[in-house]
């Protein structure tokens, strides 16, 4: 135990002095989470059902305008807020806090609408919103017309919404799409956790190149101890990453105007996923350390491998926007397993049981890579 503690203590000391490694493991993913959460906020909001804000300026203050607004209020895709002064409206539109400014005023025969569109608003959303306003005003005109032609007829019988029935072809896989922070935190967290591959493999290769590993093999310690002495500190690093990235999602992103991360309710599930992702990353790191001969090779191999796994696994481009074939292909990446497991917890309120397939796959990946590294290492020594 003394020897293992000495090895862990040494590794933690080395880690604390590796400024570049610490920046890579902590600062890079925190920056990614913050930037991507804020940059993609609107794009994700449209998919995740988050309501877009519409500033309403009712200059008519008539029964007709109130009726139009009442009709629009039934549309749950939008959040209707009374407009303030011009300067405030411009500011909210300018920084995309609001998607539209809707101004209603009296026309010759009926209510007229003027719509101002915020710069970041999607063109499809714009078309749908304009159609919704047209439909609300048209509905008001029909009511007027029916009242004029036949006062005994209830116009609502003519405007029955049951004329249209919506069917879903299939239940959505996840039931719910993530917001930008819900996607960014787990995605870049998984990416960051896998980046321990670089410092871990570099540490192992440096020991091999400097002859320290040879010296360790002449000492009265078991063969696994130098590996465990690295595995445990990097496992701890991974757990610290989890805590820090979640804190960024909970407190830092909202400070900059982004959404707040929701954590779900299964701490045990989160802990299981965190351990499983770490095991997979460390196993991969061990394999890279055995395959690469120099630290330069390990850095290139580890970093490039991570970027490919991330691109494939839905870290850089969310899986739900990928075509069906790519979505299936993406499940070849262990990062996709990690990401889906975390999304199960954060987004779908999953439990420990519901993430068992992902956690199991990651642990199996870790075991396979460790076994492969052991086999290759023996082959190289022979």
């Amino acid at each position: 135990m003394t020897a293992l503690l000495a090895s862990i203590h040494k590794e933690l000391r080395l880690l604390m002095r590796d400024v570049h490694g610490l920046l890579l493991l902590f600062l890079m993913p925190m920056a990614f989470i913050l930037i991507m959460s804020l940059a993609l906020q609107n794009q994700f909001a449209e998919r995740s059902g988050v309501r877009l804000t519409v500033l309403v300026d009712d200059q008519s203050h008539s029964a007709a305008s109130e009726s139009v607004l009442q009709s629009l209020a039934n549309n749950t895709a939008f959040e209707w807020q009374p407009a303030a002064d011009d300067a405030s409206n411009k500011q909210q539109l300018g920084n995309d806090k609001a998607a539209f400014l809707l101004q209603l005023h009296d026309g010759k025969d009926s209510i007229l609408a003027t719509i101002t569109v915020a710069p970041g608003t999607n063109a499809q959303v714009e078309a749908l919103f304009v159609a919704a306003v047209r439909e609300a005003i048209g509905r008001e005109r029909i009511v007027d017309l029916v009242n004029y032609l036949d006062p005994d007829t209830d116009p609502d019988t003519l405007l029955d919404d049951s004329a249209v029935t919506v069917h879903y072809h299939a239940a959505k896989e996840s039931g719910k799409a993530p917001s930008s922070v819900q996607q960014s935190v787990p995605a870049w967290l998984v990416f960051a956790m896998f980046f321990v591959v670089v410092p871990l493999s570099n540490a192992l290769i440096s020991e091999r190149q400097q002859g320290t590993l040879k010296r360790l093999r002449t000492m009265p310690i078991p063969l696994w101890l130098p590996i465990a002495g690295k595995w445990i500190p990097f496992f701890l690093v991974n757990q610290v990453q989890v805590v820090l990235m979640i804190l960024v999602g909970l407190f830092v992103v909202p400070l900059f105007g982004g959404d707040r991360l929701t954590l779900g309710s299964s701490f045990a599930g989160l802990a299981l996923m965190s351990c499983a992702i770490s095991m997979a990353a460390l196993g991969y790191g061990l394999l890279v350390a055995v395959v690469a001969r120099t630290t330069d090779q390990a850095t290139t191999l580890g970093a490039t491998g991570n970027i490919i796994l991330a691109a494939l696994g839905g870290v850089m481009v969310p899986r739900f926007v990928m075509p069906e074939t790519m979505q299936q292909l993406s499940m070849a990446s262990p990062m996709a397993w990690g990401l889906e497991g975390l999304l199960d917890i954060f987004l779908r309120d999953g439990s420990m049981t519901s993430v068992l397939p992902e956690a199991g796959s990651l642990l199996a990946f870790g075991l396979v890579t460790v076994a492969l590294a052991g086999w290759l290492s023996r082959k190289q020594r022979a």
Partner: protein
Amino acid sequence: MTDNAIELTDIAFTYPGAIRPSLQGVSLSIARGSCFGLLGPNGAGKTTLLSILTGILPLQQGRARIAGLELPDDTLKQRTAIVPQDYAFYMALSGRENLDCFAGLYGLNGAEKQRRIDFAVQVCALGPVLGQPSAQYSGGVKRRLNLAIGLLNQPDILYLDEPTVGIDAQSRHFILESIRDLQHSGMTIIYTSHYMEEVQSLCDALAVIDHGQLLLTDTVANLVERDAACTARFTLDRSPGDATLAALAALGSVHMDQQQLRMELASPQSLETAQRILREHGISIRQLHYGSNRLEDVYLSITEHALRD
């Protein structure tokens, strides 16, 4: 109970996939408390032998009895240590942190750990630099830290693999003195080096290995005296002509290397005759060596002069 620290019988080792063995038929005995030189050109098999003795490589063939224990025996690692040629420690850590780490890896803690660290620091005179990052050390201090780490488990047998490579004369002198002190304290030292004058001044006995085979093992005293009375080495002011060489050849074998003349003479009288022949041919003798050999000459004559790949 034998007085030998190491007894090797018919040791052989072939790396998997290799055509030729790296070691074959190596048998030798090393006395307890001695300083034993292990010599050989690059690629001769010294490192392979050290790797077997220190447990890095398995014993494939033969018998090895070290410190009274038969290989393979993991408990042996408690009683031996190696100081590798590489700086086998952590450059980002200070000397103190390195010693603390390796002492911990030996399972030491508390007062005993501190006592061992203090001893190693004292032997290697590391006190003033102990807190500095070892990456900032000079080559000599790095060598001393490398040695200090090897002393932490107070080994009965210490393997030193070229411990003075690439350092200045002062550091080399200090390390050699430290090794002498360690030997006098009863430690058995196995010393590999390409510096023959170091081996000659430090070691009691040595073995020469080449092409994986043990070519010779003897005491240093015996080796330098062997055939010494018959060998004369002249340093001349110019290379002698063919006629001079022919006249000298009548006295014994003649080897010329630029202005260095080496002769195997039949008797001390022949030495006077050789000097006379040189004078008669107008060649001045700048330096004459007759008597005990230099270890380097013995070594080169055993391993041959040809360059190695």
